[in-house]
């Protein structure tokens, strides 16, 4: 993937205020967010519930308007409509006309998206096969389970062979087999050179699928970058598990190598910088320890995610304290 590729999605300083009820007071839900999505990547937009993920996605889809800032997809302002023939969208918990059958709804979306009549039937059947709904294609959607609706939602997002696909919580409501199918489908899209933008709070999906991520917490972007940068964030560390060490020897290791004691008992666990693993092992063996295991430690996305939430909480607390004083 070319890191210098032209952004497919560009979000510039987007602010969104809502006015709850009839009151004049505004509630700001997006605080000048900015990020780019590059061609051919799977981009994870990650955040806890209420962080502003769906609001951002609705702005990109033209369903709500930003209070200020600009957003573009494929170089077009999100307020335009014609370019959307190259865009697919799966909303969170999608709803469809339940009086239509699976086949009818896909044909309806294909017509709206301008799929040529000659290709429509084959495209609809291909998509039904991709999402595993060929057998249920003649049944009305009101008889579909939540997982089947999610899959028909994915099919409608892809029926016109878009260049870029936006998925809001695509694994929602799916059983393990369904999740695997959707994951495979997303990887297949990347294989075909499509760009995928995925809203999610399921970090394991991000770790498995995404090339780059942005973390949003309370309407602010806390990180944007490659997923592997997250995973390798900070100095590499390792976890060493030892047994048969006296408390004095443990204290000496902690002090001498800036090791962090993580587990105490018959076995102790020390987290140390990867570069001092060998000296620590030598010192521990010299002190009579048995080495049980040595495991490289990778900071998980979850750790970074929780740390961002924590930082935001501290920032809010600081702001509240300043207001009080």
């Amino acid at each position: 993937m070319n890191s210098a590729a032209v952004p497919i999605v560009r979000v510039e300083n987007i602010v969104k205020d809502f006015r709850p009820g009839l009151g004049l007071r505004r509630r700001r839900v997006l605080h000048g967010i900015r990020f780019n999505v590059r061609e051919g990547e799977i981009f994870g937009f990650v955040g806890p519930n209420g962080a502003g993920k769906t609001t951002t996605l609705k702005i990109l889809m033209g369903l709500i308007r930003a209070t200020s800032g600009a957003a573009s997809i494929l170089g077009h302002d999100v307020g335009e409509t014609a370019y959307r023939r190259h865009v697919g969208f799966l909303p969170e918990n999608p709803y469809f006309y339940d009086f239509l059958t699976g086949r009818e709804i896909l044909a309806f979306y294909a017509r709206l998206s301008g799929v040529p009549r000659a290709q429509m039937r084959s495209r609809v059947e291909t998509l039904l096969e991709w999402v595993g709904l060929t057998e249920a294609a003649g049944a009305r959607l009101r008889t579909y389970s939540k997982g089947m609706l999610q899959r028909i939602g994915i099919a409608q997002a892809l029926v016109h062979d878009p260049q870029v696909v936006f998925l809001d919580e695509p694994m929602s409501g799916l059983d393990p087999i369904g999740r695997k199918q959707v994951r495979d489908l997303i990887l297949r899209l990347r294989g075909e050179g499509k760009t995928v933008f995925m809203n999610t709070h399921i970090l394991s999906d991000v770790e498995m699928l995404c090339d780059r991520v942005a973390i949003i917490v309370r309407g602010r972007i806390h990180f944007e970058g490659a997923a592997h940068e997250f995973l390798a964030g900070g100095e590499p560390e390792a976890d060493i598990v030892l047994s048969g060490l006296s408390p004095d020897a443990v204290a000496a290791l902690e002090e001498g190598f800036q090791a962090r004691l993580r587990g105490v008992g018959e076995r102790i666990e020390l987290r140390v910088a990867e570069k001092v693993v060998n000296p620590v092992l030598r010192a521990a063996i010299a002190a009579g320890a048995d080495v049980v295991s040595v495991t490289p430690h990778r900071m998980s996305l979850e750790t970074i995610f929780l740390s961002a939430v924590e930082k935001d909480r501290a920032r809010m607390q600081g702001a509240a304290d300043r207001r009080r004083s």
Partner: protein
Amino acid sequence: MIARILTIAWNTGREAVRSKLLYTLLFFALVLIFASLVLAGISYIERDRILQDIGLAAIRFFAIAISIFVGVGLIHKEVDRRTVYTILSKPLSRGEFLIGKYVGLVATLWLQAGIMVAAFAAVSLLQGAPLGIGHASAFALLAVELAVVVAIATLFSAFTTPLLATLFAGGVWIVGNLTRDLRDLGADSDVDLVRQLTALLYGVLPDLSSFNLSLEAVHELPITASDVWLPVLYGAAYVTLTLLCAVSIFERRDFK
């Protein structure tokens, strides 16, 4: 653009055809039209007029009721059920969506009104009651009135709940049948403000009585060409302006 509007319209029609509510209302309308045979049968005088009065009133009442009840949910239901999310993510403007929904509903209502008119014609022929150009004119203007009422219901549906939209649209229909009387009353007033106010109301609210030729049709009163084409032009202009307002409101909405 036309293809996209027709796709939405076709789907709206398909939804209506698969809806139980419309069949129920249509069933009651047909029952009332055929019941007019019985009611006319127990009268000794003017059986034809009684039959056609009841028949035309039933068609008008049920057609308008269906227009309002279905029209008020036309847009609101799409937003409430969030079906609008996936549709508006396609290369389709909000205006095209709203016009498509409107066209689909009007076409469906015209089809249903056509079924009621066919039942009315069958009953009239069975009774030997006259059918002429007056009846054709009355049905043509009923079709225009339905288009106007659906446009008004669509306008309210674009920004408020079905309950409020029903009250507003129903209110406009009732007042719309009285605006001509209101204007005439105001014109006779000595107070300038009353004259101006009633003239303003007449300009803003629809003059729905201009679409009602039932009396002329049943009593075989003379109907001139301008009695038909002037209301048709007026109806077309009113529908256009009302839909422009509806689109303008719908374009500004946030779908939270």
